[in-house]
């Protein structure tokens, strides 16, 4: 048995002029919950399709459980579970019929592997005679996950499973994944939601077909090189533009009702900043030094290569 569950090296995929994946390399250990985080168009779905043998890469090595995605695609299809980004179950079949169908085509039965999906499926079992098309977003995801797991896969690929699902169901979904992980299954998840990064063992931040960094969520935050403040005031728009003029400011982003301001200099006095803003007629200014979130890190990483080019 190979040491890593997934091994990808210098993977490149082009669609016409666009470079969907640009020299992507990473390894995922067995039993790891590995997240790909990035906005739409980052190349997450393409990567998942190559891993699930649905697409061929232009260049690079890609192994799942030591099997080559091109040569051994039939074997990989047997041991992997896949949940596409778009809800792809039969809307005119009931919950139970869908699960039964996917169990059957993988040569198993619901009863045989019920223990595996029990935790998730029990939540939708009261609606087992309802058509899948009539389920709510959260229930659809649970059903799709049950269907992807009913054949006891060794690796699970979940492409944006939480997109279009309410906040409560999203949290529930991640709790389910963490419980699943305990059974030793390798799970790869992609998501556009930065706040979900903390749920993964390790994350890869992706942008424009490239992986910007891979590490544990804590490490990503620890590696944030700047000092960061959350600034609030009555007029957020005015605040953003004035902060950009402040000497020594590295970046300013709007985060909901506050602005995140970063400085290269670690010894910024927040009183001086406060005076500066008050001088510019801002009232009720509050400045708090904060720990960076994954999103701050993502923004910073996104800007780094561009800055390198200009300087």
């Amino acid at each position, binding site marked *: 048995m190979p040491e890593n569950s997934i091994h990808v090296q210098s993977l490149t995929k082009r669609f016409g002029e666009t470079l969907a994946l640009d020299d992507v390399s990473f390894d995922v250990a067995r039993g790891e919950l590995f997240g790909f985080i990035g906005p739409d168009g980052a190349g997450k779905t393409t990567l998942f*399709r190559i891993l*699930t*043998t*649905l*697409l*061929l890469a232009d260049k690079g090595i890609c192994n799942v459980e030591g099997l080559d995605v091109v040569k051994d*695609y*039939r074997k990989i*299809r*047997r041991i*992997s579970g*896949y949940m*596409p980004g*778009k*809800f*792809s*179950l*039969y*809307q*005119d*079949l009931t919950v139970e*019929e869908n699960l*039964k*169908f*996917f169990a*059957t*085509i*993988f*040569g198993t039965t619901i009863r045989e592997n019920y223990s595996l999906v029990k935790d998730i499926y029990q939540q939708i079992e009261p609606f087992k005679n309802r058509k899948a098309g009539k389920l709510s977003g959260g229930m659809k995801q649970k059903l799709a996950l049950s*269907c992807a797991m009913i054949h006891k896969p060794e690796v699970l690929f979940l492409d944006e499973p939480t997109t279009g699902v309410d906040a409560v169901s999203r949290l529930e979904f991640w709790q389910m994944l963490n419980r699943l992980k305990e059974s030793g299954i390798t799970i790869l998840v992609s998501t556009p939601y930065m706040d979900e990064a903390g749920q993964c063992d390790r994350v890869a931040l992706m942008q424009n077909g490239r992986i910007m960094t891979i590490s544990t969520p804590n490490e990503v935050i620890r590696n944030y090189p700047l000092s960061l403040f959350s600034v609030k005031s009555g007029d957020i728009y005015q605040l953003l533009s004035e902060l950009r003029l402040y000497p020594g400011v590295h970046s300013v982003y709007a985060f909901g009702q506050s602005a995140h301001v970063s400085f290269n200099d670690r010894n910024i006095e927040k009183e001086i900043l406060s005076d500066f803003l008050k001088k510019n007629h801002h009232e009720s200014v509050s400045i708090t030094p904060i720990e960076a979130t994954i999103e701050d890190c993502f923004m910073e990483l996104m800007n780094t290569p561009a800055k390198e080019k200009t300087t």
Partner: protein
Amino acid sequence: MRRFRGFVVKEFYHIFRDYRTLLILFGMPAIQLMLFGYVLTNEIKDAKIVIYDPSRDVVTRKISDKILSSGYFVLERNLVSVAEIEPAFKQGDVKLALIYEPGFAGKLEKTGKAHIQIIGDASDPNTANMLVNYASGIISNYLVSMNSKKVPLQIIPEVRMMYNGELKGVYMFVPGLMAMLLMLISALMTSLSITKEKELGTMELLLVSPMRPSQIIIGKVFPYVFLAFIDACIILVLGKLVFGMPLLGSVFLLLLESFLYICMALSLGILISNITNSQQVAMMISLVALMLPTILLSGFIFPVENMPGIMQVLCHLMPPKYYIIIIKSIMLQGNGIEYVWNETLILIGFTALFLALSIKKFKVRLA
């Protein structure tokens, strides 16, 4: 095998839960058959005529009686002047006018010659042509019976229409309809059901499963073989019970040939779904590229022999044409396989060709 069965069961769920599919599957054969049988008929019954008969003698009355008792014509009214003819046509319903010359019987007696004018409403040329032919046929028949004693030399053609003595349209359109509907159900339905999986993204899931492509395809088409077969039987039974379509040959052979034709249409449907990704395109291709040629070029409505050369070549490329030839031969002439093996081989050839092409085109991946 259990996988395959599960797949087929799922396919049947899809079909039986979509009332539109069901309507097309089972409503269409019955509706089409009734339409062609009762509405789109080109036989003539009870056409309205007017008669202008200034002589009113034995002969003209005899001729008029013969014409009116033929079943093809009914008398609208007798005209009193020639001037009424045109208004009669213009009012619409009248299809034919019969005009005798004055002193008809007398002239016939004296000179051996008398004139009848038959005027048809050629705004519908086919009907006019047929009516005029029927009328003149009746008149010359009468003449023959009248003259049989006097004229020494006569050639009388004895016409007999074999296999369809009454020249019934049903005999033509039942086979044509079978060819058309089986093509529609098999090719259109399968191509739609496969492209639907592509559109909904479920094909992605089927592809990443251990199902083989051939299992997916056969599983998808299997229910339609079955349903198309039922449809073939519905048309045959309705054709026989309602329209008196004869079935002289072996029913077994007929069903076997229908099965072959269904397989041909299914493989064509698979081919279509392999080269398209959306239901809409699949539907367009099926309707435009399959339905129209089936109707127009298979000899179903328009005789192939009357078409210009290039079109005739095209007609030979239409699989339904051979199926129509086969079933007509079996049903109307009671022929066995020895008369239709040629066409059967051609159908087998088409099936093999389409299947080979679709297997070559099938993608085990998305792109």
